[in-house]
């Protein structure tokens, strides 16, 4: 596919986008985001130089995907599969060598200036390591409102009130709005990262291994939070992960990547229960599991306990911070 498709893509959706840009999501036939034939090449270090062109390595090799409104597409793969690079291309954190990205009917692959800024406020990214993606010298208040400030937008309702309201939504104590990232635990810091993403009311949130660095108990809370926020706000996720069990909990559809290509793509249950591609099968069978009979026994015991009087179950995912 060549760059001329950019024009074609614009044409097909131009009427809808032009007449009611804000209501474009209503046209459910058209996905919120469509990436077509994305390619990203990197120069191989140590090759080339003064005397010749460097060898190139294709990290992403012809990836096409769609994220529909209000759904979660999970991109899974092992290290070096190109999943994170794909996410960066989609979010325009890196420029594709070729291919195109259409967001809400508008091609954004080469968008600049005002159009890029608008795109950036619609697409937000949550990264893996909460500490390194939050400026340690800034307060929560400053971190969370930074996306608005960069875009020259007014903070609705004033900085403090706005921050506190966001903190409450992601399950943080609003009284901590003047604290610094280092004063929070890993899970809480990741909540700050999520709050920052929410500040601009995005329509697509890209989660790049957003729960991978967390302990399992904290990870469970963050997954719950991400699911709840999606229910409440109605945005879409592009969820990058290597952990298939996590993907099973959050995805509507799954794309499996290997060596820069998507080898299999489909509804979550279809991919997990009836994988078509050899690689997907290998990947699924490699996941360590607790024996099903142990699991069954444990759940039966837990149910019996829950039924018995006087026992209280572990607390639900709460907002205490």
């Amino acid at each position: 596919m060549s760059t001329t498709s950019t024009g074609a893509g614009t044409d097909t959706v131009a009427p809808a986008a032009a007449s009611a840009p804000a209501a474009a999501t209503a046209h459910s036939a058209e996905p919120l985001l469509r990436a077509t034939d994305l390619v990203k090449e990197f120069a191989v270090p140590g090759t080339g130089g003064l005397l010749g062109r460097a060898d190139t390595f294709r990290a992403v090799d012809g990836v096409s995907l769609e994220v529909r409104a209000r759904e979660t597409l999970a991109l899974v793969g092992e290290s070096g599969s190109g999943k994170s690079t794909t996410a960066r291309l989609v979010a325009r954190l890196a420029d594709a060598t070729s291919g195109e990205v259409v967001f809400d009917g508008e091609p954004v692959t080469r968008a600049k200036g005002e159009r890029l800024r608008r795109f950036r406020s619609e697409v937000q990214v949550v990264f893996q390591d909460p500490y390194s993606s939050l400026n340690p010298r800034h307060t929560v208040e400053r971190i969370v409102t930074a996306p608005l400030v960069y875009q020259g937008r007014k903070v609705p309702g004033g900085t403090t009130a706005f921050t506190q309201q966001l903190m409450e939504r992601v399950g943080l104590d609003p009284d901590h709005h003047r604290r610094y990232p280092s004063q929070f635990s890993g899970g809480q810091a990741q909540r700050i990262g999520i709050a920052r993403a929410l500040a601009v009311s995005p329509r697509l949130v890209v989660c790049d291994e957003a729960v991978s660095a967390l302990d399992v108990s904290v990870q469970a809370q963050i997954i719950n939070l991400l699911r709840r926020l999606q229910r409440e706000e109605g945005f879409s996720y592009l969820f990058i992960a290597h952990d298939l069990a996590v993907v099973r909990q959050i995805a509507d559809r799954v794309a499996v990547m290997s060596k820069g290509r998507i080898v299999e793509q489909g509804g979550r249950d279809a991919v997990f229960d009836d994988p078509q591609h050899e690689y997907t099968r290998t990947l699924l069978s490699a996941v360590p599991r607790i024996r099903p009979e142990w699991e069954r026994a444990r759940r039966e015991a837990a149910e019996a306990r829950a039924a018995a009087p006087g026992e209280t179950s572990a607390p639900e995912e709460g907002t205490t911070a």
Partner: protein
Amino acid sequence: MSALLEVDDLTITFRTAQGPVDVVDQLSFTLEQGASLGIVGESGSGKSMTSLAVMGLLPPTASLRGRVSLDGTDLTNLPESKVRRMRGDRMAMIFQDPLSSLNPYYTVGMQIEEAYRAHRAGVTRRQARKVAIEAMERVHIADASRRVDHYPHQFSGGMRQRVMIAMALSTEPDLLVADEPTTALDVTVQAQILDLLQEVRRETGTALILISHDLAVVSEIAEDVVVMRQGVAVEQAPAERLFSDPQHPYTRALLDAVPRIDDEIGELRGIDSVESAARVGGKP
């Protein structure tokens, strides 16, 4: 006949600017010859410090009380030079990140030979090299006689961990301590390394301590499991008992929090108290 490893009332204390902190508190467990024990816990649970204490590799800022006995010999009372002679010989260790755990300046062969020669007086380089190649073959590194002269950066992540295992096995130790051996690896490679660890145990009769944050990994390997939380062993039991009928609320909550690959769970159970406790404990 006593157990291979007996850890009795082990307490590890760190001197910090805020005063002493117990990272492991009165931990006890035993491990029989050829058995396997999983120590599972989240960050800050003290599981890695426990493994370092067994190896006698605690940092100088840590102090230790209690007993760690290998074959009836209390290592905590032994002079460092004696412990050093057992380390790498009777007990060996592999670590989480195989790339940084291997010295980039030397061939993998040299690093395996070095482990072997440290404990076998009078062994020639040629003999040690033969042992290194055999050890690499045992962990299924293809073309070992050529690969023995390669440097760590020329291997993939899984192959590097195999090199680490080969190094640990070269002296045929009684005990192998594996601290998060597959955490840095891809899931398909993880499965291979776990299979390899099982195979090695079967064939050599080496006892294994597997430290992991991943309950599923531990459930596949360990015969007995210790669940640790903030330095305390909250529950220890044979694997089947622990996973099918956990007694301690923390173990139950931990098992509830694990996302399953087989089905979607309505609402995952988080453990709030863990997170807030970690913060109170001074963790940044």
